[in-house]
Structure formats: C-alpha cells, structure tokens
C-alpha cells in the first residue's frame, strides 16, 4: 500500500469516525445514538486494522478486533438493555438546538484543524492527515457531554471521547502496545459499570434520567 493511498484512507476512516460523533448531534432518540456509537466503533476498528496492515503490526490487528468486540458489539448490547429500561420517556430538547449544535460541531472541527497544524507539519507519517479529525472528535465529544441532557447520552459522549483519543494515538504513532490498550479498556469498562450504577440510581430517585433534575438534590 503506497503512502498516498494510506493517507487518503486514513482521512476517509477518520471522517467516518468523526461523522459518528456528528450523528450524535444530529439524530435524536436513544436508539439513534447507540447506532451512531456502534457505527463509529466499527469505523475505528477498520481504520486501526488498515493502519496495522500498513505498519505490519499484529498488535494493532489485535486491538482492532478487541475494539470491535467490546465497543462494536458488547457495549451497544448493554446500552440497548439500559435504553429499553429508561429510554421510553419523551425526547428532551438539548441545551442547544440541533442546527446550532451541528454548526458548533463544524466550528470545533475547524478549530481542531488550526490547533493541530503544528503537529501535522512536524509528523512524517502518512497517516498524519487524519489527526485533525481525531482531535475534532475529541472536541465534539466534549461538546456532546456538556450540551446534552440525558445521562445516557453523556455516557456515550464519554465513550466517544475515548474513541477519539485512541484514533489520535493510532494515527499519530502507528501503534498502541496491547498492554496499554487492555489497561485502557479495563479502565473504560470499570468507568462504564460505575456510570451504569449511577444512571440506575438517578432513574430510581427521579423517575427520569434528565440530568437537570440533579439540581433538585439541593433541596
């Protein structure tokens, strides 16, 4: 595989990953959000596999398969179960309406391009062209976490943030040692379980997973 094709493919793969994040801003409803996350994780696994093939690194292949299993299949199943329990309430308007959120997402991507310009110019790897999009995903996930009201969506935003960081690492350094990746996965899994418990508790207390209700705790 020539470096030009790798360059194009990494941009293509990173764009798909970023689009998963932007779909979270666009579509409404728990099912659509879980679908966006699944799409993003599969795209990320494919990109990792592509980089692994180019770099000839079997560890990246292993990480890609692990990612597919855990984040592409496992977590969505768990989330769907959670969604079935809590997802039957009415749609909540996010703090910022959809069209504006999309525009802000676009501006964040442009900001990411400006911020990573020095990084991209220094790097020699052909996959560097996708790095701004990975940083863009990090910004967009942070925006999702702050602007959405449902706890479930915020959990998904956090998971997407982790995806973005993983993508950045892969594109920037062509590899994450499998030990490190397993460690990160365990952290995420632990964090996820803790968050599940929290969401369950919130639902028990308020009969809804609207995070705004948490300020009633002051009373």
């Amino acid at each position, binding site marked *: 595989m020539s470096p030009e*094709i790798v*360059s*194009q493919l990494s*941009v*293509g793969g990173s*764009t798909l990953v*970023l*689009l998963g994040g*932007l779909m979270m801003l*666009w579509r409404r409803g728990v099912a659509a959000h879980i679908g966006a996350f699944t799409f993003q994780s599969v795209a990320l696994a494919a990109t990792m596999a592509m980089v692994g093939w180019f770099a000839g690194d079997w560890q990246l292949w292993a990480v890609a398969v692990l990612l597919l299993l855990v984040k592409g299949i496992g977590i969505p199943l768990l989330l769907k179960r959670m969604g079935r329990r809590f997802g039957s309430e009415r749609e909540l308007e996010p703090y910022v309406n*959809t*069209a504006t959120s*999309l*525009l802000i*997402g*676009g501006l964040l*991507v*442009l900001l990411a*391009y400006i911020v990573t310009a020095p990084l*991209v110019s220094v790097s020699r790897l052909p996959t560097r*062209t996708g790095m*701004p999009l990975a940083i863009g995903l990090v910004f967009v996930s942070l925006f999702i976490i702050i602007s959405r009201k449902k706890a479930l969506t915020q959990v998904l935003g956090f998971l997407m943030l982790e995806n973005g960081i993983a993508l950045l690492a892969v594109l920037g350094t062509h590899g994450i040692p499998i030990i490190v990746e397993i460690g990160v996965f365990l952290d995420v899994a632990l964090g996820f379980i803790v968050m599940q418990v929290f969401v369950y508790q919130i639902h028990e207390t308020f009969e809804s997973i609207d995070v705004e209700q948490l300020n009633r705790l002051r009373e």
Partner: protein
Amino acid sequence: MSPWLLGPVQAAVALMLAPGLVGAIRWMKARLQSRQGSPPWQPYLELRKLFAKEVVVSSNASWLFRAAPFIVFGSTVTVTLLVPLLTVPLPLGGAGDLLVVVYLLLLGTFFLALAGLDPGSPFGGMGASREMTVAALAEPTVALAIFALAWGAGSTNLGQIASRTLITPSEALAPGHVLAFAAIFLVTLAETGRLPVDNPSTHLELTMIHEAMVLEYSGRYLALIEWAAALKLLVFFSLLGNLFAPWGVASAITPGALLWAVLALALKLLALGGVIALVETHIAKLRLFRVPELLSASFILALLAVTASFLVR
C-alpha cells in the same frame, strides 16, 4: 459538428429525457410499494394533455403570473447549456461555471415564489415562504461543496472539474469528493423538492412546498413549470453523475461518442433515480422546522469536504 450547434442538441436531449426521468422514478417507487403504478412515459402524456388544455388565470394575478413560467423554463433550459451533460469540454464553457448554474436556478425559484404570491392565495404565500427558506438555507452548502470540488480541480469551470476525475480516476474515491457528493445529494433532495424535504406527489395543503406555489397554474403554464421542474431534477442528477463519475462523457464531438454519452447519461440518471426512489420509499417527510437540521448536516458534510480537500496536501 460545430461546437455552437452542440448547445441546442444538449438542451434538446435534456428536454426529451427529463419527463422520462420523473416517470421512471414514479414507476420505481410504485413497484417498491407493491403498486402497479403508471407507466414510465406517463409524464410525456401529461405534458401533451396540459399544452392542449384551457388556461384559467386568477382575477387577482398580474402579468408576472403569466410571465413567470417562461422565465422559470428559460432559466432552467439555459442551465442545460452550461452543464456537462454529454461532452467535456462544454460548448459554452467559458460563459458560465458552476456558480452561474446555481444562481440561474435560484432565478427560477425567485420568480416561481413571486408567482406563488401573485394570486393572493394563502397556499401560494405559504409555498413561497417555505421555498425561499429552504433555498436560502441550502445556499451555503452548495457554495462550500462547489469550492471543495473547485479546489481539487483548480477552477469552478465544470468541464475542468469533470476532466480532473477523468484524468486521475482514483480522485473519484478521495474523501473530499465523496463528502462533496453526499452534501450535494442532500441539497438535491432539498432543491428539487423530494422527500424528506417536500413530497412531490402530495396535494395536502399544509404539506406542500413546491406544489403550493404552482397551485394556481393550469394548461400550458403548468406544463412549462412541470417540465422545468423535471429538467431541474435532471440537471442535478447529471451534475452528481458527470462530475463525480464522468466516465462515458464524450471528449470529441463525433456522432458515435455522442450516442454513447447519451446512453451513459441515461444509465446514470436511472441509477440515481433508483436511489431516490429507495430513499423516498423508506423515509417520511420532515416537519418544516426539522429541515434546517438536515441542511445543517449537509453543510457540515460540505465543510468536511472542503477541509479534507485542501488539508490533504
């Protein structure tokens, strides 16, 4: 064949294919919905019928109402002279580029909206207001998508954009190109009044956009407007087809190459028509106030197309 003669030939081909395209899409939708549907050549029969029918004009309407169909039709036919339908380079390539095409189509929309307001009916006003809203919000996407394509080709000249992909075929799958395609596809849905933005077959007053503006038209005026709408659909499809996948387009003006080009164009039109039919069968019409969300999403796609094009240096 002289290049100047090619212009009218291209326009004639477009005029002849356009109703067939609309008919084909309707037929495909019907079949997908397990209906018999009218035959694909139905729009030709409709046009013939309409030209022969009497014209009824509202007592409130002015000369603008009677002039608007000609302006709409004229501007759309002029666009067919500027678009790479059959050949690259274009016969009138130096006269207009992609921006001219977009704004000529907007001229047609402008006069159609005025014609909707003229009879003084609330449906016309509603259609005009909604149509201008959608058109205005689609503009930034179109501009950015044009520039994403133009940046790659070095010019907004349509012939040059098309030939760029002919010269380097791998360009066709470049992320910037694919994203621009997706963005222009969404804009096509908005501008030509297909689902999920507008339902071309509805006549429920509160769900119409394009239909509401032309509600008062009859006879030959309606024929002209319907034909212009079909032509607009054909223009957008041929842009999608011949800018992103220009194979089949003639580079020399010989009868053989032209025939081949017409065939290739027809195939691309049918393929895109099939996609539209699938899309229309699967999704429901969006509320008017959800349409800006769709257009924002297409704007983001165009934005990503621009950044993908110029940052992969």
